């Protein structure tokens, strides 16, 4: 195999509902500047850029990455964009990884931003991901799509709405320790249970916010890192896996990919674990940043990552295993439930896992973390990207 690929710089906005002070390219540039400062590099040293942006309609500009070329310093340089929906951010890191692993470049930047809070109605945009003839008219949105997963998970296992509320309480308490998180106010089970229903059983507090902000990361080859005496953490596992486009193909009792679970996410993790040489994730992984935009989906993500058996994660959450200080903290940053700037949400998962194994996560640091994992979900719970990051 090719030489190792390291992460040498990370930048993230302090995510908010609105960023009236910054245009869309400004937000991208903000994250790029932070990542370059973190890496101690200048734009001139970047050889290629992978631009991270999910649906164009979210920013209201067709091929909006074209207006970001100068913001990321890519003029006359290698540049392409990735879009796998919500998993775009982790897919972009993967694409940057392949640039370096292929030997095409030594230093690659991946960056993006989103203004979900300013897009009008994100669910109107997201309804347009479905086939115009069969599923769009139901009408489907990403909230009722994953509410159906919650109902199915309740049917198959033992989760109830209070279990879902416990995920929110945990992640909000984590976000309170993360200055970059969007929703940082702690909450209680009663407050979550008392919030209004959005799509039963998902309530307002079970949902992620619509965030504005950017994220950027600089990746480099092992030889470049050694030659320049840089600090790095290493990407040791990369995997993607897809499910079917039609949601209906995941419904029913005899389907391979049951909508309660995250079939392709589990397969994606198997690929990245095999690459990283991890065969007992529940024992080997120290920290996990898992893409879960609604509280119920954190359970099947934990199980797909091999941190708990199918249906067991609600009980283990109740035992405190996934809280900072527990056996394997999940989403110590507060996760997607507390910050969701869609274009970079899954990149933030990798960035946060990297900061953890680097020992640079500040107040939400998991003590002694050396192996971290990250995931991203995109499309209609269809595209899944996963990564292993090690100190």
């Amino acid at each position, binding site marked *: 195999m090719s030489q190792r690929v390291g992460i040498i710089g990370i930048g993230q906005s302090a995510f908010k509902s609105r960023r009236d002070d910054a245009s869309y390219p400004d937000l991208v540039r903000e994250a790029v500047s932070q990542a370059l400062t973190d890496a101690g590099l200048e734009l001139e040293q970047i050889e290629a850029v992978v631009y991270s942006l999910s649906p164009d309609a979210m920013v209201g500009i067709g091929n909006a990455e074209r207006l970001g070329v100068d913001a990321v310093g890519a003029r006359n340089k290698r540049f392409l964009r990735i879009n796998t929906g919500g998993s775009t951010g982790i897919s972009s890191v993967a694409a940057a990884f392949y640039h370096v692993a292929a030997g095409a470049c030594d230093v690659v930047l991946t960056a993006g931003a989103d203004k979900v809070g300013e897009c009008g109605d994100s669910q109107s945009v997201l309804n347009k991901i479905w086939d115009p003839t069969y599923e769009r008219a139901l009408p489907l949105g990403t909230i009722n799509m994953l509410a159906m997963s919650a109902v199915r998970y309740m049917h198959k296992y033992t989760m109830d709405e209070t279990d879902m509320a416990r995920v929110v309480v945990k992640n909000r308490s984590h976000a309170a320790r993360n200055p970059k998180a969007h929703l940082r106010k702690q909450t209680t089970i009663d407050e979550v249970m008392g919030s209004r229903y959005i799509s039963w059983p998902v309530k307002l507090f079970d949902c992620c916010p619509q965030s504005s902000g950017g994220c950027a990361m600089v990746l480099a080859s092992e030889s470049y890192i050694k030659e320049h005496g840089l600090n790095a953490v290493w990407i040791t596992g990369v995997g*993607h896996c897809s499910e079917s486009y039609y949601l209906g193909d995941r419904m029913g009792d005899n389907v391979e990919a049951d909508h309660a679970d995250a079939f392709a996410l589990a397969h994606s993790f198997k690929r990245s674990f095999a690459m990283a040489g991890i065969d007992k994730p529940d024992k080997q992984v120290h920290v996990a940043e898992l893409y879960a935009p609604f509280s119920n989906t954190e359970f099947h993500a934990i199980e797909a990552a091999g941190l708990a058996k199918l249906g067991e994660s609600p009980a283990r959450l109740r035992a405190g295993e996934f809280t900072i200080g527990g056996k394997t903290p999940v989403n110590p940053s507060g996760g997607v439930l507390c910050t969701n700037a869609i274009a970079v949400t899954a990149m933030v998962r990798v960035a946060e896992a990297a900061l953890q194994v680097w020992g640079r996560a500040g107040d939400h640091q998991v003590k002694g973390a050396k192996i971290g994992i990250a995931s991203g979900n995109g499309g209609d719970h269809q595209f899944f990207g996963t990564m292993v990051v090690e100190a």
Partner: protein
Amino acid sequence: MTNTKADSVGTKRVTCGVIACKSITPIDATKRSLEETLYDLTQAVLADGDITIDDIDGIVVAANDQLDGRAISVMAASGSVGGVNRDILSTPSSGEHAFVLGALRIASGYFRTQLVVAWSPTEAENIPEALRLAADPYFHRRLPLDEWSAHALQAARLEFVAPDAAEAARHVVAKNRKHGRQAFPDLPVASSDGAPFRWPLTRDMIALPSGGAVALVLASDAFIAERKIANPAWIRGMGWAAEPGFLGDRDLASAPGLAAATEQAYREAGITNARKSISLAEVTDATPHQELLAWEYLGLCERSKWRREAAAGTFAAGGALPINLSGGALTFNPVFASGLFRIAEAANQVRGQSGNRQAKDVDLAVAHAASGPAMQYNTVVVLGRSRGAPQ
């Protein structure tokens, strides 16, 4: 595409070749759905490579939301290209970027094969209106500015700087129309109407968008050797680069992004005199002026010789260096997928699989793919019958 840096850590070099190419020209949306079209295309390209879907390790797809009338339009491909339970990535920046990413993934050593698929346009009723959404919403969208308007500004600037360009452009149109009648006898006859379109472009200088889909299979040297594949088109060099998003920041009579992409590709391929080394070219010609710029920046014909060489038939079928034997985008223009069509056409010439437009003895071909307003993105791929000397 050869991983040359892998040697530094004592690992094996990976070289990549194109082992199959198929296209659908045009898509008849009244008879087949997008999914059916992509399924048929995938089956055809697998048959062309004498492989099955089980041989495909990963997939990269490219499509454009605005032209498809869907958000995250790549989602629709999951099932029909064999993406379910496979590692699939997608790019919305251009069809040719899917090729770049596929080649990088193989050169990384983590994949033996990649299926690369792009299509466009399918469901947009008004293409200029859809493309106009890509203009900056504050400064340019109200002009109104679509891609053809940007192409026309480029043509006007080029004719101002190089007065011979207008006459040379007419020769290019005649050449590509003649090639197109040979290559695609069943396509509707292109307009010969010299009426104004977007000044200085006339109606006969462009092809209206058509639906098309194209797929290629890329494979590693190890896979090609194991399967004893006799006629791959080896990727000898690859470059890609972007120019700024604002037209006002560019001199449209020059193409520094194409210069950068060419430099990368020729450096990898060891080409110092392209006119001498290259046997055949497929270049982007959304307008004939774009083809002229490609002649110059690919090192095939200096600007001062455009008119003379064009009139002499140097680049016509039977000439010293045939360019666009397929008829180019002036014959068939699937907009977003047009660049990947150029690469597939060049690869098939090298493979000896070009049928009614096959040139003799194509040892080394160059493909130029451009996308966006006035060639904002440029990709250059050098393909050879032989694997080439180690870099």
